[in-house]
């Protein structure tokens, strides 16, 4: 184990409540404090050589104060008494200049709460792995790429990353809570070269709360190599309309767009095409979309949200019907609804909206092979680039690469094309969903087939 940099005295809930007391003494009518300490480790090995080794820890404090209906917030990395004094007085002074907003304020105390029971979101087993072993995991992942095929000629490296965080949240209405989360991952990013000189890259990874739950570096390297090699020889295709099949790791972005469209902030700002659509059919009746911050061991699980409300399971879309927006306290008040416990709170600023574990359930899931089998000519998307998504209008246009589908099977790799449509229609036009959903991060989706999109190419 490397010498740790986080040998400071640990942050405590007592410090958070002390900050709140200081804020109230300085004139705040309400206050909320958040403390965070974390550490990170990164080892990157490329072509057998350690290219980068990083290890460190950091701490920070954030404070949000209310002066009646006015609010402001401050944050600092200076946790000395003088630094915290500046944090408090800065916040109170700043709040005096903002506007009165009758909707501003901390949540009602009756809504506070935390999940009980073992959530399995923290493991310290990575601490028992000596640095040399962590480096070895990165080295093995990179080596497995090169071992897979002689056309793997280069790489952007294999890596082992780990981190742990400790978060404390407290407010002047009586909430005090804290939790720790850990994450570690192994990844590989090989580069393949074809005889004519074309280069392609791809990657693969495994993430887990505990080092013991990671997949083997050999399997990650082999999968990364397979994904990279299948892109060699990619070419463009003519402009046309065909069914588009999103691989599970890419379909996650479509599920993410449904979450965004239901984001309470966009809703009350009239900035989402889901505004005013509660109770309406917004997607294929086959689809149910769920956000669940309570899943044991989940990548998006926490005992409480950024305002001290217990996380929960929210059905956003049920069999295609929009059932709920995602809300924090402020947006819920604006829309005359109840918070869904989706407040996300970093160190600085006011709470935003964040997902827990977000996923899609299909009423009639199919094996991915049978989804392909039904397509005479189509596109299987393995990568999307660019940000061409407009949540106000739903207009969607992104760069894509993947595999051409011919007569129900993968044929040749394609790139240099765009796929375009409108999300309102795309959600309705999901004509098949796979039975292959796996949580590799906090958002998960099975394979999805969407009809009616336009491919632009040569």
């Amino acid at each position, binding site marked *: 184990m490397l010498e740790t940099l986080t040998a400071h005295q640990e942050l405590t809930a007592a410090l958070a409540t002390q900050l709140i007391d200081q804020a109230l003494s300085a004139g705040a009518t309400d206050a909320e404090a958040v403390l965070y300490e974390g550490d990170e480790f990164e080892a990157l090995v490329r072509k057998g050589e350690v290219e980068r080794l990083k290890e460190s820890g950091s*701490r920070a404090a954030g404070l949000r104060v209310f002066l009646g209906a006015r609010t402001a917030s401050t944050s600092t990395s200076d946790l000395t008494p003088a630094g915290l004094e500046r944090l408090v007085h800065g916040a109170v002074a700043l709040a005096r200049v903002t506007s009165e907003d009758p909707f501003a304020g901390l949540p009602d105390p009756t809504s506070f709460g935390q999940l009980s029971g073992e959530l399995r979101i923290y493991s310290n087993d990575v601490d028992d792995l000596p640095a040399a072993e962590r480096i070895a995991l990165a080295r093995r992942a990179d080596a497995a790429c090169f071992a897979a095929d002689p056309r793997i000629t280069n790489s952007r490296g294999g890596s082992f990353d780990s981190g742990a965080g400790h978060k404390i949240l407290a407010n002047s209405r009586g909430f005090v809570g804290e939790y720790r989360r850990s994450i570690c991952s192994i990844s590989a990013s090989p580069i393949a070269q074809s005889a004519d000189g074309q280069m392609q890259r791809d990657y693969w990874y495994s993430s887990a709360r505990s080092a013991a739950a990671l997949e083997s570096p050999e399997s990650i390297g082999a999968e990364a190599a397979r994904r990279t090699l299948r892109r060699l020889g990619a070419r463009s295709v003519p402009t046309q309309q065909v069914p588009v099949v999103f691989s599970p790791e890419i379909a996650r972005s479509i599920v993410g767009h449904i979450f965004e469209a239901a984001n309470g902030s966009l809703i009350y700002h009239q900035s989402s095409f889901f505004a005013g659509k509660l109770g309406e059919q917004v997607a294929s009746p086959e689809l149910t979309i769920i956000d669940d911050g309570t899943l044991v061991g989940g990548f998006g699980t926490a005992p409480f949200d950024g305002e001290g409300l217990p996380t929960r399971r929210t059905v956003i879309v049920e069999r295609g019907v929009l059932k709920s927006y995602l809300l924090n306290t402020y947006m819920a008040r604006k829309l005359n609804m109840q918070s869904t416990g989706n407040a996300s709170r970093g160190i600085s600023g006011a709470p935003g909206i964040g997902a827990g574990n977000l996923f899609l359930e299909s009423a009639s899931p199919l094996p991915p092979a049978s989804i392909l089998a039904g397509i005479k000519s189509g596109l299987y998307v393995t990568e999307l680039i660019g940000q061409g998504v407009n949540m106000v209008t739903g207009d969607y246009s992104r760069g894509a690469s993947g595999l051409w589908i011919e007569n129900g099977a993968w044929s040749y790799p394609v790139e240099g094309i765009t796929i375009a449509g409108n999300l309102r229609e795309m959600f309705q036009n999901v004509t098949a969903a796979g039975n292959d959903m796996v949580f590799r991060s906090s958002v998960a989706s099975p394979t999805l087939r969407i009809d009616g999109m336009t491919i632009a190419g040569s």
Partner: protein
Amino acid sequence: MSHQPTNIPSGTQQHNSFGPEHRRYFFDTFGITERLLERCLGEALSAGGDYADLYFESIASTSIGLDESLVKSANQGMSAGCGVRVVAGERTGYAYTDDLSADRLLRAARTAALIASGPAKEPVSGFREKTQQNLYPVLSPEGDADIASKLDLLLRADRAARAADSRIVEVRASFSDEVRRILVAASDGTFASDTQPLARFNVFVIAKDGTNITRGSAGGGGRVELDYFLTEKTPEGFAKEATRQAILQLNAVPAPAGEMEVVLGPGWPGVLLHEAVGHGLEADFNRKGTSAFSGLIGQSVASSKVTVVDNGRMPNRRGSLNVDDEGSPTQETVLIENGILRGYMSDKLSSRLMGIPETGNCRRESYQSVPMPRMTNTYMLAGDDAPEDILRSVKRGLYAVNFGGGQVDITNGKFVFSASEAYLIEDGKITAPVKDATLIGNGPEALKFVSMVGHDLRLDEGIGTCGKEGQSVPVGVGMPTIKLDRMVVGGTGR
């Protein structure tokens, strides 16, 4: 704003009146001494290595936001820390601390030193401090300019946007600024410090006409202070521009799909260069042979009308720096000259390993980040064509004048950028506005199809943020009006 960035006098402002003050800041505030810097560098090289540096950073930032005609949010942040880097061959060890006590700094240095394994090396003794350019004089180094004046900017933008058109139903505005102080000390004797202001104003509006709802946004800034928004770029200007875009979109038709002639307007469409060639010319990708541009120096990668530079020394620009994050002075670097690839953007590590000139392009998001070669302000030099002639020459195509972001796959060269304001060109005339569409091309090929280059070079308004390996840094882009004979437009129409 400067419309002729090539005319900027270079090297005319050699005296930096803030030089001693930068250094004093870390010495006075955190008790750092030259002796301590030397001890840390000695500790960093205690297991060998070729080079070590210390990067001290202190940032004070403020952001305020307006929504529904109310100033609903106000945030202030303070952060300070130091990153220690040890380089041994191609290996980098890195550690950082947000506690700047001697004990913690030495501990970070020892952690970073674990990358090397050999006999201790001695840093050169004595630091050398060069006189610096002063591209962005700082008038209020504490970042405490009158908060009431900043709030007033937001309220002015709100009034202007609502007054501009009755179909504007939502207005949000934000103003954020920061002052970043840095001090770099390295084992090669480098000692540099800087105070870097950065400010940005943004307006976002929603227009509604029946069931038709659209958005518009506009913003700008740079390494400037409050005064810039009171005199040169006013909130009313940004509000009008955001409103114009949203109203225009109310009548937009679907963008066409397929390969066609594309004319890009001046200024921000220069994001094309950033994605198509900029990232691919960062030295680290080329050192590792992972870029589609690897090994192409001296070869043709664009039409002979194309000359592209990266210039970190333009006064008050968002991407400018007096010194880069390794303490080296920034410069103007020719990347592509008349279509021929001339050079890469490099840092000390790439320069040493590749035997190429160091260009002052080393940047990092914060003291917690390992630095790497990055762009500053990247733009194409002006050509001879009149913009009207360029448009007139197009039979059927797309005229794109404003963009959202872009992205590139360095290895296969494929890049995209998304038009947020574009029009159809039919028989040489601009006709209907089109909906958002992504354009896609191949980096080493795309600029070979540039057939006309306008004389109207313009830099963007100061809104660019570039992401690489998870690190964000402010950048600038620029371009004259240009015509590409072919490019794929990703719409849904015909």
